[in-house]
């Protein structure tokens, strides 16, 4: 069991006093970000990324930096549940399903129980995903060492086709959003030929669009604008968690072990295949509702079910965590937040991908060990500090909103020290507001900006190898099956539409 000894080594890296402080700071900041409107996992990490530049230059600093940033992410995953349950406002998109039963429970005076079960199931979901990462990622990395450009291209193709095939929304809009991302990624210098693309003589466009700006604008500014429509006030129930409630809830939770297990499986699957935490939480809620004997009471105002909180929270956290697996092993992020973390790795001078596991053992295993520790720290922090975080939401919107907008502007500026990025952020903000109201998905847009250049590069490298012969994408079993799977997923919305029509009109 190589993994166990590597993991133990990782714990020795992660357990330094300084790293524990970063973990704690990260989780608290993360919960705060998760609770505040307009700040979420992806843009929160994006804004704080520039602060780690100096930190990453010290010896061992990259490990501390990734621990800080990943703990912000865990914190944000926990924090989303607080606003969902107490205020009926999902602080994060993946906690929408948590409001269905969480808020009615809080209204019935069971806020403590709902919060405890949300946090505990988040923890369980994350734990399952981390165990999966521990044992599966070295294997995937070893496997991926033999990947060439065609294999990488098929992985990228699979990522993008999975978005189209698995999205619940309109596939045409998913494609449009994704292509917009590719177009934005193409702006700037073409690395292969040295030609300038889509710059039309503007020097600001030479370096292209940074996806971090898109993340801050789309998710940050866009979300604030959406929040505004609902008015300026938050109204919520009081939160108190005392040890008695926690223990009582913990006694009740083992009853739902099957739901937890199922939700973890759904979450891990949706995280690795880039579906993301949000669809995972909805899917898991739906499955739990269908399978549970109390399914009819799910989401009802009279008899809200704890199980209806357990299912989405477990899946969201499992998906959010396991999205880091393809990011670390292949360099292909499964979610916008994983993409931001990947961006961090690149800025610090680390090349994500299979070589990371052989060349940066301290970093990788320190990070994996910190996932265990960070989630334990997270669970303790949220269980003890709920009233404090809920109080944050009682700060009037007229104070909190301008401060968040200022933070977004500073974050956008610090990415590259350019004012042009700040203006772009506002434009992305308007786009994010309109897109999310028209159900254009934002995640494929962001991932296309991140991966567009690299997908194109691996395609062109493959073409150089094969002298322009497309059959290279079917040249061996591995690349062939991945390409086929991708094409299958791409065709899936069409196939299912045809099937639905056939079923609707029996011959």
């Amino acid at each position: 069991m190589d993994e166990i000894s590597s993991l133990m080594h990782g714990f020795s890296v992660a357990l330094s006093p300084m790293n524990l402080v970063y973990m704690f700071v990260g989780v608290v900041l993360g919960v705060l970000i998760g609770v505040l409107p307009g700040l979420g996992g992806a843009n929160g990490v994006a804004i704080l990324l520039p602060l780690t530049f100096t930190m990453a230059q010290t010896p061992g600093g990259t490990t501390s930096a990734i621990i800080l940033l990943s703990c912000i992410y865990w914190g944000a995953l926990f924090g989303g549940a607080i606003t969902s349950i107490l205020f009926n406002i999902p602080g994060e998109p993946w906690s929408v399903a948590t409001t269905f039963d969480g808020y009615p429970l809080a209204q019935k005076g069971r806020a403590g129980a709902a919060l405890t079960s949300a946090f505990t199931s988040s923890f369980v979901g994350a734990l399952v995903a981390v165990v999966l990462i521990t044992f599966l990622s070295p294997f995937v990395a070893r496997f991926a060492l033999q990947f060439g450009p065609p294999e990488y291209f098929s992985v990228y193709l699979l990522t993008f086709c999975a978005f189209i095939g698995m999205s619940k929304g309109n596939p045409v809009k998913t494609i449009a959003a994704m292509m917009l991302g590719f177009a934005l990624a193409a702006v700037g210098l073409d690395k292969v030929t040295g030609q300038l693309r889509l710059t039309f003589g503007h020097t600001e466009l030479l370096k292209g669009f940074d996806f971090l700006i898109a993340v801050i604008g789309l998710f940050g500014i866009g979300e604030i604008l959406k929040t505004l429509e609902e008015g300026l006030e938050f109204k919520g129930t009081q939160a108190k968690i005392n040890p008695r409630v926690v223990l009582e809830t913990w006694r009740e939770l083992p009853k739902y072990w099957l739901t937890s297990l199922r939700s973890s499986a759904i979450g891990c699957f949706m995280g690795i295949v880039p579906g993301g935490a949000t669809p995972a939480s909805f899917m898991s809620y739906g499955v739990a509702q269908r399978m549970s004997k109390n399914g009819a009471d799910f989401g009802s105002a009279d008899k809200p079910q704890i199980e209806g909180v357990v299912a989405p929270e477990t899946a969201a956290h499992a998906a959010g965590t396991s999205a880091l697996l393809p990011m670390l092993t292949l360099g292909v992020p499964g979610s916008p937040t994983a993409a931001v973390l990947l961006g961090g790795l690149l800025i610090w001078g680390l090349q994500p991908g299979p070589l990371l596991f052989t060349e940066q053992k301290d970093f990788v295993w320190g990070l994996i060990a910190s996932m265990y520790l960070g989630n334990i720290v997270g669970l303790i922090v949220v269980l003890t500090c709920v009233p404090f975080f809920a109080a944050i939401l009682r700060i009037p919107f007229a104070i909190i909103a301008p401060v968040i907008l200022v933070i977004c502007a500073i974050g956008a500026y610090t990415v590259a020290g350019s004012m042009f990025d700040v203006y772009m952020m506002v434009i992305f903000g308007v786009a994010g507001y309109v897109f999310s109201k028209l159900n254009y998905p934002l995640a494929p847009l962001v991932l296309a900006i991140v991966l567009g250049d690299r997908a194109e590069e691996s395609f062109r490298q493959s073409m150089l190898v094969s002298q322009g012969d497309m059959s290279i994408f079917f040249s061996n079993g591995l690349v062939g099956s991945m390409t086929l799977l991708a094409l299958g997923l791409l065709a899936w919305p069409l196939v299912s539409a045809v099937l639905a029509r056939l079923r609707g009109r029996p011959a």
Partner: protein
Amino acid sequence: MRWHRRSRAGAGGSCSSHPFNLPIGFAMNDDSSERSAASVRTLELIVAVLFFLVGAVVIYDSFRLGNKWAEDGPQAGYFPFYIGLILCLSATATFLKALRRGSRESFVTVPQIKLVLSVLVPTAIYTAAIAWLGIYLASLLFIALFMWRLGRYGFSRIIPVSAGVTVFFFLLFEIWFKVPLPKGPLEAALGLS
């Protein structure tokens, strides 16, 4: 990532409870102000046209770059050409669908768009002001204006909050993390830049 908020009407509980506490006349007479500023269909059509235009620009540029298949593989414009083409096709599909059976539901009501603009316009001015006021002074004024206009706070609250936040960010970025942010005449006068 989509962020579905359940609408007020569907949320039940505390959210929908407060209009009922108001006198009936008050709740009713803003019927006219709840009128829609634009329908979902209109916005769908506008956004589809914009997507199409982006696609057209990308295709146009790909011709300049060369969008053919050279001997050593695709030219620089090869990928963009197809990206642009798919963008135009998907935009056309969305446009036609919205034209035929777009939802006439409200995309945004008049009071909503007023609120959104009351934040968006100052934010745009704020980002423009950063270039010549520096980020700190601009942020201070932005927070103060926001609190005054939208929160209707008095100066006794506005000054400590806006100044406190700005000073905290100055310490955080310039002193602790040594990340320089844009500075303007105020910092120059104070000898801080």
